[in-house]
């Protein structure tokens, strides 16, 4: 408790983690530091892929001969907003059990290397050599539809190829892989803007085989989380209650003074219960693992200004949970200072139109987003 404001454990934990990041060392006291301020990840300065959605994000394969088509759509943006009709190509490859573990993998950051074998997430780039085995070109620029999406079709042979290449043995000698832990297929997205600038992203779709993992039979594949509404608020009080809340719909254009702030709160998407499998570390056996509540993570982006925090979550470790027992998904938009806002020649007043995106992701590759606009200037 402090200042009349109550902190829950989650909030305190969030503060602690920040604290740890600030200076987990006596070295901080004596001045060792990196005196560089990097760009904020929520500010879109140039060409970036902010998210990618795929439908379906999870496939339960009852019959290999009737694999569903996959519809992939990346969110491509730069400092001017949406990149219209980006050109991209899609290459697919199976999971690499001995491949690198990305920084997001808690197994890696915790000092227990997992790579693509037993990691909780192991998307990686596909081999660069077009002639490499296990590398399938699924779409080219010509396949991109007007809405920026592309439809992909994997063949049974490719799936079998992926299954056979995703095998490993644990420390007890037991054989594991895509057949019992789920088979991820990595999709590499190469987006090229008109000026030739290219960025890369990877996206994953997970396949299950009930014949091999009977426990998964009958499960409902992952449903893409959806942000059904967005709210705006002028502030948040010490009890973490938003003030002057109003809808922030697609047609709204709230104005924020230069250097001012606006709170943005997405609605809570559906948190599905689901069943997955895990590797028991003490026995090497693969066990069904039910998850009662799926974690949702929200990322905020703006073409100018920044969001703080840039990411919120239903997970208290990532977001802020207060003593009302609810996760707080809102983030504070901080408008650029007046010096950074151009003057409108027509009015002689500062004015800057800003595009905002809010992306929601779930545990199993489901993702969607909402786009909003606001204006930085004098009300």
């Amino acid at each position, binding site marked *: 408790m402090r200042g009349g404001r109550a902190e829950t454990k989650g909030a305190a934990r969030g503060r602690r983690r920040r604290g740890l990041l600030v200076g987990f060392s006596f070295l901080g006291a004596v001045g060792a530091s990196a005196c560089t301020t990097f760009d904020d990840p929520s500010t879109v300065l140039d060409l970036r892929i902010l998210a990618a959605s795929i439908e379906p994000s999870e496939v339960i394969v009852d019959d290999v001969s009737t694999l569903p088509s996959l519809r992939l759509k990346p969110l491509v943006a730069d400092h001017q907003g949406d990149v219209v009709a980006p050109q991209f190509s899609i290459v697919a490859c199976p999971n690499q059990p001995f491949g690198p573990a990305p920084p997001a993998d808690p197994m890696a950051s915790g000092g227990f290397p997992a790579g693509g074998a037993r990691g909780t997430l192991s998307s990686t780039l596909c081999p660069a050599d077009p002639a490499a085995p296990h590398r399938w070109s699924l779409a080219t620029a010509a396949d991109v539809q007007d809405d920026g999406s592309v439809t992909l079709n994997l063949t049974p042979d490719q799936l079998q190829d992926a299954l056979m290449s995703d095998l490993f043995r644990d420390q007890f000698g037991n054989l594991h892989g895509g057949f019992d832990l789920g088979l991820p297929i990595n999709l590499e997205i190469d987006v090229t803007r008109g000026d030739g600038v290219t960025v890369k992203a990877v996206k994953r779709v997970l396949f299950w085989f009930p014949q091999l993992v009977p426990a998964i039979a009958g499960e409902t594949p992952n449903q893409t989380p959806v942000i059904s509404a967005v709210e705006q608020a002028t502030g948040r009080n010490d009890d973490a209650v938003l003030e002057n809340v109003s809808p922030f719909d697609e047609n709204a254009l709230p104005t924020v003074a230069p250097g001012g702030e606006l709170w943005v709160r997405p609605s809570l998407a559906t948190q599905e219960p689901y069943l997955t499998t895990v590797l028991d570390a003490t026995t090497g056996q693969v066990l069904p693992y039910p998850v009662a509540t799926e974690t949702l993570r929200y990322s905020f982006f703006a073409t100018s200004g920044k969001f703080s925090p840039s990411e919120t979550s239903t997970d208290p470790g*990532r977001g802020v949970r207060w003593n009302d027992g609810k996760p707080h998904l809102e983030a504070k938009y901080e408008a650029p200072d007046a010096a950074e806002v151009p003057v409108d020649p027509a009015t002689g007043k500062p004015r800057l139109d800003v595009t905002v995106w809010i992306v929601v992701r779930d545990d199993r590759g489901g993702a969607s987003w909402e786009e909003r606009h606001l204006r930085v200037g004098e009300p």
Partner: protein
Amino acid sequence: LLSLKRGRVLALSAAWAFASFSFAAAAGAQEFEQRRPNEVEPKAPVPSAPGPQLTKAPVLKKNVLPVYPAEAYAEKREADVGLLIDIDASGTVTSATVAKSAGPAFDDAAVAAAVQLVFEPAEIDGKPGAIRIAYTSHFRLAAPGATDAAPAAEGASGTPRDSATAPVPGPDAPSVPPSASASAPLAGAPPAGGASAPKVLVQGTAKEKGTREPLAGADVSVIRRRRQADGSWKEEPAKLVGASDDQGAFTVSWGFDPLGPDEAVRVVVGDTNHEPCIHDFAASELGGAPASWECVAKPRVGRTYETRVRAPVKNPEATRTTLSLRELTTVPGTLGDPLRAIQSLPGVARSPYGLGLLVVRGAAPEDTGVFIDGQRVPALYHFLVGPSVLTPNMMERVDFYPGGFSVRYGRISGGAIDVTTHNSTATRLHGSVDVNLLDVSAYAEGPVGKDTAAAGAVRRSVIDGLLPLFVPKKRGSTYLTTVPIYWDYQARVDHRLGGGGHLAVVAFGSEDSLKVVAQDPDSTFSLENRIGFHRAQLVWDQPWQGWDTKLLLSYGYSIQDFNAGDDNHGLIRSHSLTMREELSRPLASWVTLAMGFDGILSFDYADFNAPYPRQGRTLADSSSQDRIIATRDLTDTAPAVWLETPLKLGSSWRVVPGVRGDHYHVIDTDKSSIDPRLAVRYTYSKSLAFKASAGLFHQLPTPQFLDKEFGNPNLGLIWADQYQLGVEKAFTEVIDLSLTGFLVRRHDLPVASVERFSSTGKGRSYGVETLLRHQVTAHFFGWVAYTLSRTEVTQGLAMLGGTQMAGMNVNNTSTAYQPSAYDETHNLIVVGSYRLASWELGGRYRLVSGRPETPVRGAFFDADFGGYTPMYGTTNSTRRATFSQLDLRIERTWLFDAWRFSAYLDVQNVTNAQNPEATVYDYRYQKSAPVRGLPILPVLGLKGRF
């Protein structure tokens, strides 16, 4: 007339310094062990003005080395013997008498050698004359720093170092009674008028200023003074009347005319190493009972005139560097911390941020063992940039073995550091207090009984109390930093047993925790992280029927406790019993049998309760993570036996084969190893020797790696084969050079894999270590250490040792070698410290190649977790900028009668060099910035000693 004229004293000193230089030039090549010139320096305190003048000091022509007493050597006893040596006008020693005894054996050895010395005679008023000099023989088991001696005789070697003299010019000078403790009447001079029975005029004691140590063997002279009509004093020539005894006591007797009312007696007491004490007694003070006087003599800088007798170094074939206490405590940039001085030696990589990591010949820090009195300890340094866990006062010696060490040491595959604590022999109470910006420490030692002495030390950090005073308060700020809280203690009781035995009970321990310092005064953040160890051990040395035996029994308690927030907890606790028994016995004149048992029985308990990502293929955020709720209750054992047979082949060869067998029962797994080792030393001459060694060295992987849940119990032992070839050359008495080439190959190193870890990693280090060293002298010590080396590991290990746990390939079985994260091609360290009077100024400069780094050549966006994954270039294919840093230290000492006080300023990174220690990247790895190392860091300290 005698008078104390400083200018003359200085002039004489300069002349004698020249004489000493001449001797050094002549003798330097003769004795490998020669350390200091054997010139004779007349003692300053009793210069005589109108009387005979010493115009040339005696200079040693023929040196004879004392023989180290065999029994004392066997019992590892050291001693100093004070002598008074009378030299006639031809330079022949006419007598040598003991002024300060160290027991019959040492006394006899010192005297036997001294009477064989031959000098160029002293000259008095330009003519050869008789003289008496004070002379000290130091018997030491091992020489600091150096290679071992070429023994002058079996079991001993002698090194004339320097001698001191209290010249008493005049034909009667040699007639001073040799008794070190008796009073004496005025000698030589015939009574001016009818002699009377000697009467004790003065009873006094002589002590050293600042330490209250008794001045044994100090010369006592008197000058009869008569006041003239004009008020001035007329003085008779000085007369040497005796010397102080072991306790510094002396008396002045008077056998001549009674003093008249206008007369006085000036008494002068002093020796080579101290400024003179002078006191004038008026006749009225001397009429009745003997006057009492306490002489407190100020030590002189440059107490360099003595004989040093060295027994052969144990295991001379080993490549080892030994640092003396002065070197250990005054190397700049180490804050006076002895064990940090080791980081300035060749073969030791620079530790980033000044952290206490010991990377020896490229081995990981955990591969180098630290032993305190033979007992391995889990930590050498306190947290972060804290000092070592042992205070300097308790240390007697630190031996650093970069590799190729004896089979006595085991369970490590890198280097070894053997810290020997101070064997307390105090005859009265001593102590010290040290206060600096990091910590406060205190030390005391003293006698407990006739054959027993005790010593103890404690230390506690203060930075945790000081730093909050300087952190600006800002309500709501999330600024946090952590500072270490540490404390340690050491206690030791030594008891001398009959038959040359020795019993010591030693206890020491250390604990560390962290304190969070926050800008926000309302901050409630807490972090509990505690690591500590405690040891209590009994060491019994006893010669027995020709055997040397040493038994060590030890109980140890170690704890690591971590709590962060409400849901992260880890505890590792261990109770251990250690037994070491060493037996050695000469089987013949050329072979010795040495063997031992080295066993550990450990009761270990571990408890973890922390979030743990589940091992599945959906994105597990912390809310959906599993928890580690693991408890381990284990009984681990690690017995070992070793056998070594040093062979002395002829006068030049020493060959030491040895073998060690280890068995491990750890975390319910059993592993064994056999380590054969061979070391050879060839002494080409007394100033040149060659060494070579080869051997195997096994150790356990980090125990956590063997856990079935977090590691892989099938991992094998890590092992290394080490080879080294070296040469040692003494250029002068104080300057020597060692050059060592080495090759270390490491095998079965744990590498990250889908089995969590597999024993598929390999590594190798090779290079040349050079140490050009100026031994400690009165005014200076220093060295230049340069290491040219290469450390490589196979690819998976290179990534593991770096920062690429994320982004790394697992099960990387590539056998291609890449630079290790510890690789430093060039490592140059220059250390020097100069002492002048009460000031000491030192500097350390380091120029080290930047550490390898793996370049990031881009990144891609991972749309599932919403972040970027770096794309690395070739592992460790680039290097950070060269490290360059200058550290300075200045110390000033003030002497008081009963204690001394010092203030020092140790400034690290004087030039505030911006040395990069790491690289940080922005969220998408497009921009980077170096993480700078320590900025300029001045630390002020105060020390008081009594």
